[in-house]
């Protein structure tokens, strides 16, 4: 029997709650229930965003207090007497027992990205209710569970990555499939994120200038940290943020000056710039561009999220979007095709369940955690925070006028190229906005046009500008806040593009190393350049295709991105379930197996529809044959404008369809291989080999949660540390 089973039951297993706690938790439950009731029962009237926030926070509190505790204590049996890798291998740098509050911040900054901001905005086409339900229920039972369990198992293996765990615990075949899947998914991820940036910056001299300025700012910060004052992160970041704000303000001056033309770029031009940037960013030394950008985007990210939470809390705006739109059942929405099941789950992706988090949870964080019991706060807790970011994005998308929402998020082919044609197209969708209102909305944020600004970022920026200007600065500040929000999103998307290209390159070098040895040496320059060029070329291809797709790049590619992300979650949940079974926790395997089953149902249905559906709006191959047939008849089908467009549609549909098949096949291979391992482990538990590091007694004393309990305070005092646990960091064991 594996060791974990025999571990002592952690923490005090007191039965029964004191009356005061019961009263508090009953009140929390009532707040959450009130939020849900108002959201569910209101029809045809505007509901305050306060109810959405109440439903979310109430549900999170209950889930954290009860479900995550159950998983930590009963399922994982997190053991506070067992030393973590940070304690055993402490070298003061990579492996280092980090204060739990600091690590929570690090982990949250690493998992929070553009996904939870963009997905919910697009999903709002089905109304705010389906999105709200999935963001909250999904995080509680799937997303946060995946993050926490992956973190736990990686911690038990000295911080091994998801791919390594798949290879060691499932086998070389499933492991290789998982690695290729991760690589392919990464490419689509980078392309779609870059597409979001292109759509936000095209024809916008203000935005383009501000974002371009982040490159010299980053170079300056890099030079400062390398040469002038090494390691002084706070001061250089403060200077950087000040310069960034200056860049946003001066973007407005540039837009009104003779330079405006230089920074007014076509989408295609932006693609070329991004690809060139991506290549150089990934081959330049880390200190020059990546490291300073990372500081900048982390400060901006945390700051803006806090600002948004305050803005929502103070402004408490009303939601103008319907609770459920008719697109939920008809599946004919202009933002993405397909009906509520499975596409709302595919589109929301990261805010509820994100496969990519498994890569973070099995990387840096497990090497820094102080106490096993802290996986609950760091793994589960930070994913709840991420989910709340998704809720705020949904609020921002739902408070703007639905007519404007659809005018911003429908493909250009549907809207035509004037405010008149767009107003008519929106009316055909069942919503109203006058041409003059469309012009006024663009003028309010000092943009040439807001028509078909797909990808979610501009919509979110309009919503955020609405919220921020209501609290700080009034209507006169709207344009500033809009560009502030665009900057905030573009900045960390570009940081992800930069870091993601490097990770992709690294994986490719590793794979190519099997064919030609020198590739494996990461310091071999030609290898790095070739691999970088291949990775940039791959996402650059999809980006180019997305920008020029007559059907709309986001409309075509976003579902593929969502499917890819959710399939990666399936891989992570498969590894987690396999490990639960192999470590003798069969009784509790449902904790990850149920979300896995749901995720498989969603992704397989979505993939099946994308491959086999006979609706040309949904099925890639049906789309291909419809357009191919029209080409043979010499006809041009709208929204294609000419034969060139027709051929583009055929090529893109083929590539997207083949990619859907590839993703699906790879994940099926992982699932089957894992199933084989699980069956073997269940039939013969005694022969099961688990790659877990053996138990070593922990000497560190540290609280499990944000606030130490009474018992933990007493332990800290006995250990000679301060009652808040501060002193126990790093040197706690030796003092």
């Amino acid at each position: 029997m594996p060791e974990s089973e025999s571990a002592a039951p952690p923490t005090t297993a007191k039965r029964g709650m004191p009356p005061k706690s019961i009263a508090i938790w009953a009140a929390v439950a009532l707040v959450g229930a009130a939020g849900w009731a108002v959201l569910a029962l209101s029809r045809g009237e505007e509901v305050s965003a306060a109810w959405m926030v109440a439903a979310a926070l109430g549900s999170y509190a209950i889930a954290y207090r009860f479900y995550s505790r159950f998983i930590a204590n009963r399922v994982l049996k997190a053991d506070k007497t067992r030393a973590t890798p940070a304690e055993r291998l402490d070298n003061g740098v990579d492996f280092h027992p980090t204060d739990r509050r600091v690590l929570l911040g690090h982990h949250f900054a690493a998992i929070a990205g553009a996904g939870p901001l963009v997905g919910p905005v697009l999903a709002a086409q089905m109304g705010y209710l389906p999105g709200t339900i999935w963001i909250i229920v999904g995080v509680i039972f799937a997303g946060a569970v995946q993050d926490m369990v992956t973190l736990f198992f990686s911690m038990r293996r000295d911080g091994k990555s998801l791919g390594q765990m798949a290879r060691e615990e499932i086998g070389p075949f499933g492991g290789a499939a998982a690695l290729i899947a991760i690589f392919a998914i990464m490419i689509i991820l980078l392309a779609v994120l870059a597409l979001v940036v292109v759509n936000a910056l095209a024809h916008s001299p203000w935005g383009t200038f501000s974002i371009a300025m982040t490159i010299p700012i980053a170079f300056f910060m890099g030079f400062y940290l390398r040469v002038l004052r090494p390691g002084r992160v706070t001061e250089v970041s403060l200077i950087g943020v000040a310069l960034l704000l200056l860049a946003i303000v001066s973007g407005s001056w540039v837009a009104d000056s003779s330079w405006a033309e230089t920074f007014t770029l076509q989408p295609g031009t932006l693609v070329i710039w991004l690809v060139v940037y991506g290549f150089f960013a990934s081959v330049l030394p880390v200190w020059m561009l990546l490291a300073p950008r990372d500081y900048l985007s982390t400060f901006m990210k945390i700051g803006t999220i806090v600002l948004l939470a305050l803005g929502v809390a103070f402004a408490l705006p009303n939601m103008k979007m319907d609770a459920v739109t008719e697109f939920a059942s008809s599946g004919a929405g202009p933002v993405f095709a397909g009906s509520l099941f499975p596409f709302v789950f595919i589109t929301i992706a990261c805010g509820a369940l994100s496969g990519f988090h498994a890569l973070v949870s099995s990387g840096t964080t497990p090497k820094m955690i102080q106490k096993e019991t802290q996986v609950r706060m760091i793994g589960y807790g930070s994913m709840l925070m991420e989910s709340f970011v998704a809720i705020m994005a949904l609020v921002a998308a739902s408070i703007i006028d639905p007519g404007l929402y659809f005018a911003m998020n429908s493909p250009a082919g549907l809207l035509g190229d004037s405010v008149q044609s767009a107003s008519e197209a929106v009316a055909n969708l069942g919503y109203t906005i006058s041409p003059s209102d469309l012009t006024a909305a663009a003028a309010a944020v000092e943009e040439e046009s807001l028509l078909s600004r797909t990808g979610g970022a501009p919509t979110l920026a309009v919503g955020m500008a609405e919220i921020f200007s209501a609290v700080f600065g009034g209507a006169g500040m709207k344009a500033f806040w809009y560009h502030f929000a665009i900057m905030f999103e573009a900045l960390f998307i570009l940081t992800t593009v930069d870091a993601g290209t490097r990770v992709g390159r690294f994986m490719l070098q590793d794979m190519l190393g099997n064919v030609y040895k020198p590739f494996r040496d990461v310091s071999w320059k030609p290898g790095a350049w070739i691999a970088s060029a291949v990775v940039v070329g791959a996402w650059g291809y999809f980006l180019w295709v997305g920008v020029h797709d007559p059907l709309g790049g986001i409309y075509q590619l976003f579902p593929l991105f969502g499917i890819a992300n959710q399939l990666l979650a399936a891989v992570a949940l498969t590894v987690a379930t396999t490990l639960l079974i192999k470590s003798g926790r069969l009784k509790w395997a449902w904790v990850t197996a149920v979300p896995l089953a749901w995720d498989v149902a969603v992704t397989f249905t979505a993939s099946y529809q994308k491959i086999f559906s006979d609706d040309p709006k949904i099925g890639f191959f049906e789309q291909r044959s419809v357009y191919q047939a029209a080409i043979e008849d010499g006809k041009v089908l709208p929204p294609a404008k000419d034969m060139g467009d027709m051929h583009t549609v055929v090529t893109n549909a083929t590539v997207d369809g083949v990619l859907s098949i590839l993703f699906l096949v790879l994940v099926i291979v992982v699932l089957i291989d894992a199933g084989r391992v699980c069956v073997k482990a269940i039939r013969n538990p005694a022969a099961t080999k688990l790659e877990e590091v053996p138990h070593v007694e922990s000497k560190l004393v540290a609280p499990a949660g944000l606030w130490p309990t009474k018992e933990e305070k007493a332990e800290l005092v006995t250990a000679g540390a301060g009652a808040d646990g501060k002193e126990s960091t790093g040197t706690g064991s030796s003092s």
Partner: protein
Amino acid sequence: MSMSPALKEKAARIRFLWREATGEATYDRYVAHARKCDPRAEVLSRREFERQRVDGREADPREGFRCC
């Protein structure tokens, strides 16, 4: 202006958490760690240490990977 001990304690705690969060404390930690093993150990200068630390990310870019 003198701070009360409680306030001082609070300020020190915030400063500690901030320096840990930004990574500014990493060098001090490295020196403390090296000295703990051997009080007369040769330690890198801050400049050298920070250089090696950031260059280490070159070798394996998966460290510190950011998510979508």
